[in-house]
């Protein structure tokens, strides 16, 4: 049997696949951030908390109302999206004409408050969530055992990412959105309700975070800090991809998942920093990010 850098190829395939699965989470979360930043110019630091909210809503739906995982996939993102809409109407709306920094401070504060409330109520140990029957078990691929729940994450996130990309880049609605990003006043003059569009866009971006939370519920520990650990990495992903670039965030999300996966094999201690090293390198060479356009 041949070996690649001292690692048997089966192990390598397995690790690449796992990297892709982690990349799915990065992609879907950074996509939400990119959509929000692209249209609202808001650096949404509550994204991690909203991801956590998605997982908690899924848990509550099952434990308080008996709603199963598949319905949660629909209900939880909508519920989290609605909290986003309320947030936008009440607070974020007032910051559009100000510097980025204010949006960042507001959303960061909101994230701390949300996480704090959940810590107070549920503690930090986390809550158990049983995967639905269809997602428990898995398949032996020869080079690794792939749990159904993980395979489902790749499929679901690839579909959602592509659909989002398609809507924004290829449809009339997407064209309005992109036009409103360029020049809101002009688009408004054509009779498009720009403020409503912005509100809904924020709601949609937040719903994406909620969706990622539902996907995470059967896999990761559901606890109030689950988003905090992830969000910093996701921000790095967005920066590497280019702030506001839809395609960029999807491609870098999956790509960095792969790179991180490989680091876990060759130098596990470095897997927590590899993404930030790449971010620093990219910023040195291409300050606007890999897919970003310089204004």
């Amino acid at each position, binding site marked *: 049997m041949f070996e690649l850098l001292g690692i048997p190829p089966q192990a390598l395939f397995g690790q690449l696949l796992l990297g892709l699965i982690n990349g799915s989470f990065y992609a879907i979360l950074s996509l939400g951030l990119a959509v929000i930043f692209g249209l609202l110019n808001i650096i949404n630091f509550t994204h991690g908390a909203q991801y956590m909210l998605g997982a908690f809503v899924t848990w509550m739906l099952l434990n308080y109302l008996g709603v199963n995982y598949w319905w949660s996939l629909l209900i939880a993102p909508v519920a989290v999206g609605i909290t986003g809409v309320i947030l936008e109407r009440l607070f974020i709306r007032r910051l559009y004409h100000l510097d980025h920094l204010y949006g960042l401070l507001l959303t960061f504060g909101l994230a701390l408050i949300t996480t704090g409330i959940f810590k107070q109520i549920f503690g930090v140990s986390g809550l158990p969530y049983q995967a639905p029957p269809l997602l428990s078990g898995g398949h032996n691929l020869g080079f690794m055992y792939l749990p159904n729940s993980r395979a489902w994450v790749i499929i679901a996130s690839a579909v959602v990412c592509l659909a989002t990309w398609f809507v924004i880049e290829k449809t009339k609605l997407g064209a309005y959105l992109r036009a409103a990003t360029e020049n809101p006043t002009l688009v408004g003059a054509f009779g498009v309700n720009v403020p409503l569009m912005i509100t809904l866009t924020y709601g949609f971006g937040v719903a994406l975070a909620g969706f990622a939370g539902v996907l995470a519920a059967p896999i990761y520990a559901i606890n109030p800090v689950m988003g905090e650990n992830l969000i910093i990495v996701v921000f790095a992903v967005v920066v590497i991809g280019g702030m506001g670039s839809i395609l960029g965030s999807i491609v870098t999300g999956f790509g960095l998942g792969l790179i991180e996966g490989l680091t876990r094999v060759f130098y*596990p201690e470095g897997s927590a920093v590899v993404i930030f090293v790449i971010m620093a390198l990219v910023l040195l060479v291409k300050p606007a990010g890999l897919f970003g356009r310089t204004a």
Partner: protein
Amino acid sequence: MKSRFVLAALAGVLMSGTAYATDVKIGVMNDRSGIYADIGGEGSVIAARMAVEDFDAASKDINVEIVSADHQNKPDVGSNIARQWYDTEGVDVIADVPTSSVALAINEITREKNKIFLNSGAATSDLTGAACSPNTIHWTYDTWQLAHGTGGAMVENGGKTWFFLTADYAFGHALERDTSAVVKEAGGEVVGSVKTPFPGTDFSSFLLQAQASGAQVIGLANAGGDTVNSMKQAAEFGITQAGQAIAGLLVFINDVHSLGLDVAQGLVLTESFYWDMNDGTREWSARFEEQTGNKPSMIQAGVYSAVLHYLKAVEAVGSKETEAVMAKMKEMPTDDPLFGQGVVREDGRKIHDSYLFRVKTPDKSEGEWDLYETVATIPADKAFRPLEEGGCEFVK
């Protein structure tokens, strides 16, 4: 002139009103917001208060004040708080302090300031070994105890080859080192290990490496959320079904509660305390649960026991002078409803029985917190590292 006299008289009255023979201030420092907040956190503060109440300090002419702070699992944050507490806020004792890296820092500062450190939360056995201090008592558990409890039991049951998933900081390294020693001593072999960034979320990649190693036992040298995530994912990837055993080397009752019995059932683990052992533990735990909503972890129980013993020593000595109180704590046997009778050894190691538990199957559990059955009791004299093997420099 007259007003000055009134003021002086008033001050005199005030002072006599609050004057106690001894004033002690205990600082409970731990993780109040991160992944170790449930095993210590506010629960440890409540446990310390319960000790003060049960001791009935006020009637013994001792005034106890309890303060608390969040070290965020960061040694620099913890060190700053400790210096501020000792230097400007008159704190005499720091209690709890989980997260070994922070505990080692507080251990040094406490020695330098000649105060007292009652550690319940941290695991590293270095606190009574290479880094031992005459000012520190390591109360509840340590990595040597865990390694010999869980590790020893696994090797005895035929788990000869091991692969470690190790949290990449002082605690994980110490736990891996101590468990490896047990495995090798029993004729087993360590085939590999991987250092995982702390805290982590996704352990699947590391679990796959452990699987590929073909080891009979995968040792989890991590804690809290890391353990919960790695066990949840081990179940997901069918690792135990494929024949490898998981050894949770440091598992707290809160982790098992969080995992749920479906995932955690059958897991063998070592703890120094479980709420459902006898009437004393049940009664105390019920009072604790009333205030916190949870059953106590062994760390929280340890904070209670340590603070209680400290107050008894202060009463016996009649002052809070460090050397005298430390000497008294080591001379006097310990006795409380949670850990029973025990002693504090010369090197600062508190000695009591240790227990090997197995997590119940869902059909055997009769309640939310009915989680463990006792497999074996490891007697106090076998539970902890022998004094002469620790290498503590001031023990002759």
